[in-house]
């Protein structure tokens, strides 16, 4: 009898491949699925589980199911992909400088003067001063050091 194609194994591998793809195209856009990528971790988990079941039946029932060798290879690839994702999210993205000199709560914010779009110098401290035309100065300023689009 011809041995059957191990669909469970390959379906699992497709799910594993979908995990990083859907993270980068969909889940990264929403803070709730980006800050802690729980949805992506679940997809990885589901895919790896399917692959483990597929590989197990390839070894237990080799007369029925194929995939002992190919299954071992794709499961290794799946685990490697999962590992790469974990390292990126929980290690690489957290490699930040210490910034010990950054101003703390209660300290004065360092003042700076930079040119605006017309080349006129503008200071942070000037924002809080009343304007010459009688307009009141700003009550507060939010400085966002922005890096890339999220």
């Amino acid at each position, binding site marked *: 009898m011809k041995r059957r194609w191990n669909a469970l194994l390959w379906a699992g591998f497709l799910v594993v491949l979908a995990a990083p793809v859907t993270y980068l195209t969909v889940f*990264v856009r929403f*803070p709730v699925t*980006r*800050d802690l990528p729980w949805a992506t971790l679940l997809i990885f988990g589901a895919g790896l589980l399917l692959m483990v079941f597929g590989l197990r039946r390839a070894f237990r029932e080799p007369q029925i199911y194929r995939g002992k060798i190919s299954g071992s290879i794709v499961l290794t690839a799946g685990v490697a992909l999962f590992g790469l994702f974990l390292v990126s*999210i929980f290690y690489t*993205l*957290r490699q*930040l*400088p210490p*910034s*010990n*000199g*950054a*101003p*703390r*709560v*209660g*300290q*004065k*914010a*360092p*003042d*700076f003067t*930079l*040119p*605006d*779009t*017309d*080349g006129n110098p*503008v200071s*942070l*401290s000037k*924002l*809080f001063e009343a304007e010459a035309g009688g307009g*009141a*100065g*700003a*009550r*507060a*300023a*939010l*400085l*966002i*050091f*922005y*890096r890339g689009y*999220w």
Partner: protein
Amino acid sequence: MAISVDPPERNRELCGKQGYTFTFLSDVSSDAIRLYDLVHEKAGPGGTDISRPAEFLIDSQGTVRWANLTDSIAVRARPEQVLKIVDDLKLGGPS
């Protein structure tokens, strides 16, 4: 107010195109990033120095009232979170 590392002319083009009317400053030598000790060396495109993501809320006395130096590049302060802090510190509303 916004600060970019692009020169003023480039910022003027961007403001014109996007319709921005707020103050848009130019920091070509990353002075503000250095002043706040936020330089992330060689992390930018082509190995350039860029800023780590960070947010500071400053009151009219120039004092930092809230700061967020995130642990992960992917995790930033959310707008609703900042608005709540502005409310809690009573820094919002008309002056």
